[in-house]
């Protein structure tokens, strides 16, 4: 069925074109749209408020803390006994505790995490990936308190059967479980970085006669290095902020021992210890909470920012 189109009459002469409704001609501000956009913007603003609240709160309470305790004593002192007399406010033992647990965890998780990432991106078949990826995601999703349980009931007894004079609460056990905890994070993030390296680079290296080992270590990993490094840093920052597993496994004894067989206390474990007791608001013990938390916040923030800078600035972009 065809309709005849009147092509003879000039367009200007067609009379009965419906007029545009007034609402379109005079469209002013649409209040509904305006309100909704305002609401959405307000929600986005929540994140700014959160950051501001964290920074203002931590800074103001930390400044109050520094009215009583000099920054020199806090940053350089080597004894941490804020909860009993004679009180001493040197934060170094807590930093040390956090550091040895983190370094121990990194020594375990970085090589194994990278090896897993290489296996997943370079060697594993699609079927194997389909099994292992969800398993890694599951491992990453296990709550940290469960890792604490694992440390106390499995890792520590195992260590004690090998090393008889290790303490019940010890830094080694904490480092091992934190290492297991951050491993999936390194593996999945590094896997993503390595898979982003274009296939043509691998093909080129193979064409020159390189073995799979040489292709991986001299072409693929260097090409994906920014992503791999960023994954290491994010995992380390996670290990520093990790709380429940280290509180349960490493104990509550702030000291600067070189031995990983002894009980230590991390910054996070101290915060838990204070909040479990009934510390009055406003006292010096309450303020130490914020001083330690500020230090923790600044350390993790710096590491996270460095990892973002590495990602943005050193990323090799292949087209």
């Amino acid at each position: 069925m065809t309709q005849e189109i009147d092509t003879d009459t000039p367009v200007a002469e067609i009379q009965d074109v419906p007029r545009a409704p007034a609402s379109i001609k005079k469209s002013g501000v649409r209040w509904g749209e305006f309100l909704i956009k305002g609401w959405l913007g307000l929600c986005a603003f929540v994140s700014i408020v959160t950051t501001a609240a964290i920074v203002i709160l931590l800074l103001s309470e930390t400044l109050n803390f520094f009215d009583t305790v000099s920054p020199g004593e806090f940053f350089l002192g080597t004894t941490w006994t804020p909860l009993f007399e004679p009180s001493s406010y040197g934060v170094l033992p807590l930093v040390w505790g956090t550091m040895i647990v983190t370094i121990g965890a990194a020594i375990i998780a970085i090589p194994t995490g990278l090896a897993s990432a290489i296996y997943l991106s370079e060697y594993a078949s699609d079927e194997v990936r389909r099994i292992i990826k969800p398993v890694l995601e599951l491992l990453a999703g296990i709550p940290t308190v469960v890792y604490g349980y694992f440390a106390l009931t499995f890792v520590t007894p195992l260590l004690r059967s090998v090393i008889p004079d290790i303490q019940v609460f010890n830094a080694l056990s904490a480092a091992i479980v934190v290492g297991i905890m951050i491993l999936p994070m390194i593996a999945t993030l590094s896997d993503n970085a390595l898979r982003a390296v274009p296939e043509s680079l691998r093909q080129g290296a193979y064409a020159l006669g390189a073995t799979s080992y040489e292709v991986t270590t001299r072409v693929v990993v260097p090409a994906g290095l920014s992503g791999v490094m960023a994954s290491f840093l994010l995992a380390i920052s996670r290990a520093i902020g990790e709380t429940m597993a280290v509180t349960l496994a490493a104990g509550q004894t702030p000291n600067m021992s070189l031995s990983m067989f002894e009980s230590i206390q991390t910054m996070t474990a101290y915060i838990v210890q204070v909040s479990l007791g009934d510390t009055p608001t406003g006292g010096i013990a309450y303020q130490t909470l914020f001083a330690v938390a500020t230090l923790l916040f600044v350390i993790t923030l710096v590491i996270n920012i460095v990892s973002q800078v590495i990602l943005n600035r050193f990323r090799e972009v292949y087209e």
Partner: protein
Amino acid sequence: MPLTTEQEHRNLAKRHRKARIFARFCAAVTWSGVVLLGLLLYQVSIDGFGWLDWQFLDSFPSRFPERAGIKSALVGTVWLIALVAVISIPVGVSTALYLEEFAGRGRIAKIIEVNIANLAGVPSIVYGILGLAIFVRYFALERSLISGALTMSLLILPVIIIASREAIKTVPQGIRSAAYSLGATKWQTTWAHVLPASFPGIMTGVILALSRAIGETAPLIMIGALTFVAFLPEGPMDSFTALPIQIYNWVSRPQEEFHELAAAGIIILLAVLLIMNATAIYIRNKTERRLK
């Protein structure tokens, strides 16, 4: 000096051997991770399975291990997650919509974006301190469910926002153009087309974020969720306990029986998480197929 053929052969064989060993090493490391997960689950289940019965689910905590149960913790967790969902989903998804659809590429959008990325890396215990100082003390909400839910919502907001933005980004531009060309306004387009198209992706992100909230312990300890609660919360202002807190409490006791109770609690917690993760993976797989 050029190598002789024999040297070349030996050299090549050595390089290939190295490559084989390396490949096996990487495979062994990865599979041992899988074995480790198996071992962990096995260990937990042989410890805790004997304690799992109706009595365990239907009892309050107790000094006597044989009478102790997780009723109040389980109910507390359900309350907490429901409140967290009600608070964090609207705010998180709205933020994502604002950043993707309304904010443009301006300076403010950039600041919010960087800010959210940094918030995602803040240790959970710092959120706990924030909750303690702001909600528990300043707003005087006490050690209540609502304090815990607000703290936990702030903690998982960055996760929800980032996941939702990824989902919204995958909506083809053509869908928006088609809506606009029919005269739809920005919000009509967003509400009726962009949001439904990205809904499965957003749901996946939300479920994963909520499952993180279920397992978080440190912030709840900070705001003072109680470890011994022999009653059920009846409203958002009631004090409460939650599964991970109860597990922490049992693990930190010296007696063997309480460790086994903790294992039983962990089984319940992991079962809840597994169901949520499986749902998320199911939604993801289903929609991946549909989009292709």
